[in-house]
């Protein structure tokens, strides 16, 4: 059991008390307490910007604390000056964006930097493969060690990362949103592995926005809010509502606000569409309707979204918007047809990270702000960006701020605004709340409902089942590129959807 704030825990392997950190005079951590025992799974939660990643960056030696009353790791000092020293001391972090080299094999990735050598000084490939296989066997993950990591699923890649951490003899594993990209089945496997690590006496720090997982998996929880530790204690003593109250400092009563809307006329008709990863999909969707798409990773939801938008070519089938057939050969055609797409991967596909909010938000709709000849009416552009910043409550230094400096939630709002600046008739939202904290999620749900009320036709692709069930009017299930189930709101349950998703 974790002790109350401020009091030391003699059994802790990692014990941090009174940690302060400021960036450019802005305090990010103030007197934060955090401790963890061997064999304990500790949830670290808080909204984006609460200080979770700063705290973990201190633990892993990426940055150093300004001040701390106590910082110990297994009886010694814990303020590591470099990530390398933290790693040598047995602290490993598994980042949300996995740090693997996609073209190297599983074995090469696991052994990277510490390859065993033969007497001739060449890499001992046999031993490298044997060691990797042994580690994966310990995790009970039968992954072929000769496969390039890039060909593995995200879940398998995560297992490779964990195996790599184990090969470094890590005693503390920090996992940042590990299930964000995983299917339910993969998540269950991951939890088994984590429980196995716990049984081996490893300490686990588990960072997640998914509160359900914390109750399933974790022993204790530390809640950060605005750079302070606001709660520490066993998970068993808490319920979800209390946890949310701790995180946001207020109660969020209805996490998934459903908005009942009279359905409008048919907006989008998809008839027998086949494309890369999509086979013979047909459905219609109306204005003022949210159609949810469920499915496991790789079921073809993203591919379907991209095909409807024109980002991947149709092999067969027709698409009509407001009764008019549209020819889609390039995203530009989708945009012209009134279709907007908000990609799942904000970093790689959604926003140009080193560019400003302004240029990102107006990029797709730039033609609207141009005189003939392509000269941008900058005042109009600015006004539009300002309007969306206010309407979406984007929190940033200003519209000139680089997108990469924003939290996940604010980036997602910018990404949404970018799509909506096109005044689309159909909008495809691919995992709109991935990596977004509870408070910002609520705001995004509110925005989605506003768009729905405004008569927009919304396709919602999400792996977050409660979100899908909470917001959608209808849910379509995909598996292997096909539609395998259709549910009306009310008749959809997690179990029924899952049965179709695996079938």
């Amino acid at each position: 059991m974790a002790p109350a704030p401020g009091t030391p825990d003699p059994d802790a392997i990692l014990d941090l008390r009174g940690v302060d950190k400021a960036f450019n005079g802005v305090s990010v951590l103030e007197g934060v307490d955090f401790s963890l025992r061997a064999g304990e799974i500790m949830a670290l939660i808080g909204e984006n910007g609460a200080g979770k990643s700063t705290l973990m960056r201190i633990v892993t030696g990426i940055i150093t604390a300004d001040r701390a009353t106590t910082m110990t790791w297994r009886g010694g000092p814990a303020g590591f000056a470099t990530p390398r020293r933290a790693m040598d001391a047995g602290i490993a972090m598994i980042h949300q964006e996995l740090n693997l080299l996609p073209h190297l094999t599983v074995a090469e990735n696991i052994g990277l930097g510490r390859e065993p050598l033969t007497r001739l000084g060449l890499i001992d490939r046999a031993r490298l493969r044997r060691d990797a296989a042994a580690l994966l066997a310990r995790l009970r993950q039968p992954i072929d060690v000769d496969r390039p990591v890039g060909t593995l699923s995200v879940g398998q890649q995560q297992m490779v990362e964990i195996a790599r951490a184990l090969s470094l003899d890590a005693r503390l594993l920090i996992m940042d949103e590990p299930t964000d990209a995983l299917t339910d089945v993969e998540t269950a496997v991951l939890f088994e592995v984590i429980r196995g690590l716990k049984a081996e006496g490893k300490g686990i720090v588990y960072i997640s926005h998914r509160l359900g997982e914390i109750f399933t998996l974790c022993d204790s929880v530390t809640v950060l809010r605005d750079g302070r530790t606001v709660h520490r204690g066993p998970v068993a003593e808490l319920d979800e509502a209390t946890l949310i109250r701790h995180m946001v400092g207020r109660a969020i009563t209805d996490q998934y606000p459903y908005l009942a809307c009279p359905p409008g006329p048919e907006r989008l008709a998809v008839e027998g569409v086949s494309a890369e990863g999509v086979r013979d999909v047909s459905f219609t969707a109306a204005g003022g309707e949210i159609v949810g798409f469920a499915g496991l990773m790789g079921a073809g939801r993203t591919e379907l979204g991209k095909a409807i938008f024109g980002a991947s070519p149709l092999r067969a089938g027709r698409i009509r918007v407001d009764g008019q057939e549209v020819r889609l050969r390039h995203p530009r055609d989708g945009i012209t047809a009134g279709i907007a797409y908000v990609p799942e991967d904000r970093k790689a596909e959604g926003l140009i990270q080193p560019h400003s909010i302004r240029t990102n938000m107006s990029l797709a709709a730039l033609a609207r702000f141009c005189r003939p000849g392509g000269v941008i009416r900058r005042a109009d552009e600015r006004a539009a960006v300002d309007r969306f910043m206010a309407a979406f409550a984007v929190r940033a230094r200003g519209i000139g701020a680089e997108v990469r400096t924003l939290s996940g939630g604010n980036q997602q709002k910018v990404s949404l605004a970018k799509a909506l600046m096109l005044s689309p008739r159909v909008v495809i939202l691919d995992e709109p709340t991935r990596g977004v904290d509870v408070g910002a999620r609520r705001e995004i749900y509110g925005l989605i409902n506003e768009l729905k009320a405004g008569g927009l036709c919304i396709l919602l692709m999400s792996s977050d089942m409660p979100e899908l069930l909470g917001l959608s009017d209808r849910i379509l299930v995909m598996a292997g590129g096909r539609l395998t189930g259709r549910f009306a709101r009310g008749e959809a349950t997690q179990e029924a959807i899952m049965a179709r998703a695996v079938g």
Partner: protein
Amino acid sequence: MNAPLQVLSRNKPLIGLIVLMTAVAVMSPSFLTVDNLLNILRQTSINAVIAVGMTYVILSGGIDLSVGSVLALCGAVCAWLVAGDVSVWLAISLTLLLGAGLGAMNGAVVGFGGVQPFVATLVAMTMLRGATLVFTDGRPITTGTGAGADAFWSVGGGYVAGIPVPVVIAALVFTVFGLVLTRTRFGRYTYAVGGNEVVARLSGIRVGVQKVAIYGVAGLLAALAGVILTARLESAQPTAGAGYELDAIAAVVVGGTSLAGGRGTLFGTLVGALIIGVLNNALNLMDVSSYYQMIAKGAVILLAVLADGRRSQ
């Protein structure tokens, strides 16, 4: 902090230029004279014009090694046209069109053929140098003594209100292409393609078409530099422009534009071109052998790239 200081603090190349000029002025009394400064500007103008096109290409995440060969071929064609008594303006227009077309071909190979810019333009560099040698038969082409030859010479050697014509041209090029880069859709798309090509495509930008246009700009401006150089020398050398791509890339990089694309300014390129110009001039004034000059130039570029590496960390 007041405004000028803020501009400086955000603009390391500008600080570099000021420090460099101060140091040279102290060491060499003949540096800070109107004649010498105009001389620097004139000598810099050709590299500056090429570097504007190079900035577009590098901002888009590419590189163009063929500009020196484009310059040579276009210069030769221009000299041949002028010597053949084609009217000067027509000769220049045709030459610029040729340059833009050659650049656009690079853009098509990169944008639609999916070839790495380095490889595509290296091939173009070799082939166009060969084409120049074929066209000129390996000998210089003089602009002759025809009716247009004098008028043509003034493009490279004349003055407008006491300012060398090439400097006026370079100033115009910077103004026009600076405005295009910051105030138009074309400019935004150039940054977007270099910033993240996938995002650009999903934002409805036709990336291939954009690249054709960007490399077209680089070819156009290389041709313009060829016109200026040919006019000034009153002849086109088949080996003209060899190594100019490196000076242009140096100006862009010293000016703070990221070789990774998506980040940089044309103002930086102007400063970068001037730094290289002042450096060459100073080493000449101090009678440093041209062998050492190459080493010095390399050192400055290395410094700039190291500073950029720091910045982006």
